[in-house]
């Protein structure tokens, strides 16, 4: 009887460990479902520079006048000052709705942001892959529909789980001023002045109104963590 109960316990232990291991392996190996696009109507794997000074925006059923943008008045890129991307790092704390930008362990910027409320901002470690001086973003349906031209200082980021086509980015927001609280459809909203500073500081080093990251001009890393208070 003792031998039988002992072998029975061993059998159950083996079964438990096997089931545990299989479940853990499935979680690791099987690809997660792809993250949906934040700006459902304007997502693209090739986001375009767009400056539309005569257009009006819509947000929360309100008509919004976008800021005027003159590319001719823009700060000219400084050639030959490509900083190693590894020195700079951006952190976004969703729990506190804060952004921290560091260069060589020195704090360059600390500011409040607005992360996703209508769609969660993805967490993880990302790379900036393209910077646009301005673009148009639209999405949502019904009361949530929005269409925003001249979204300023856009830094798109991605990783292996959040593809470039999902269109998540850090950018300036001219349609609300509720920073420190989730407000967006997934992107990280910033005050325009903060987005402008970050845009010119972060890599890839700005070469024009559209700047793609490359092997010679890599994008700054962005780490997003925590849980937004939504």
């Amino acid at each position, binding site marked *: 009887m003792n031998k039988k109960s002992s072998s029975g316990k061993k059998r159950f232990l083996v079964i438990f460990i096997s089931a545990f291991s299989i479940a853990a392996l499935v979680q690791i190996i099987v690809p997660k479902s792809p993250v949906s696009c934040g700006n459902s109507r304007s997502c693209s794997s090739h986001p375009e520079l767009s400056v539309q000074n005569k257009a009006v925006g819509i947000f929360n059923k309100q008509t919004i006048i976008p800021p005027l943008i003159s590319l001719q008045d823009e700060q000219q890129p400084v050639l030959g000052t490509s900083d190693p991307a590894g020195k700079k790092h951006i952190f976004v704390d969703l729990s506190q709705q804060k952004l921290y930008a560091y260069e060589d362990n020195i704090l360059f910027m600390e500011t409040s942001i607005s992360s996703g409320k209508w769609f969660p901002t993805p967490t993880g470690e990302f790379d900036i892959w393209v910077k646009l001086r301005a673009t148009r973003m639209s999405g949502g349906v019904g009361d949530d529909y929005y269409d925003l031209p001249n979204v300023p200082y856009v830094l798109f980021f991605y990783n292996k789980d959040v593809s470039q086509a999902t269109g998540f980015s850090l950018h300036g927001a001219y349609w609300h001023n509720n920073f420190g609280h989730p407000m967006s459809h997934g992107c990280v909203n910033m005050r325009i002045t903060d987005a402008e500073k970050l845009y010119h500081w972060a890599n890839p080093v700005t070469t024009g109104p559209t700047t793609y990251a490359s092997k010679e001009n890599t994008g700054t890393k962005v780490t997003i963590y*925590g849980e937004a208070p939504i």
Partner: protein
Amino acid sequence: MSLLKHIHFMTITVISIGIVSGFLFVNYGNKVRNTFLASATYTPTTPTPTILPSAKEEVISSDSPDGKKKLTLKKIREGSLTAYSVFTSDIPEVASPSEVLIYEATIDSSQRLSIPYNTWSPDDAYVFLQEDSQAGRDYYVFSSTGGSFANGEQYLHIRDLFTKGRPEFTLTEVTGWAAPYLLIVNTITTDGTEGPSFWFDLSSQSFIQLSTRFN
């Protein structure tokens, strides 16, 4: 239950526990890894605060999010009273002064006026101030150009308007602007539990209850 059925039941139970444990183990591990990623890597340096010009005089300012306007609050404490003056100005300052006085008052020093972080409306047309006193927290909206509202008022008293319009809730906080004319208002219920969020629409001076809370 026969022995065979007992073994089957135990086998299924053990497999189920194993599967659930495996999922939980991997997901918990991922969460811990993500929260650890940034917190311990860099040590932030604390900036040194600037020295105020006088112990009795204090100047606080807040730039608009687009960097074009500045709201300045000056306060001078004189005994049990504090004199406040609030004005807006352009950034950068042009040759002729662009300051516009939008409010001034001398109040008891137990009351304190301050500038909330999201004071500016997105279109720079309005600002809101916060007043803290023993009676609680209050909010006032001003035109940034010093103009008056539809009924000739110099400012809109948000708590007063809310109490009249929605007495079943208590206003706890105004966090910022959802749009150029919409202020976000959070509330609690009469029994102290979390209440809904509202938009205060400046154009109609009405409160719109929202289906989602703006935390």
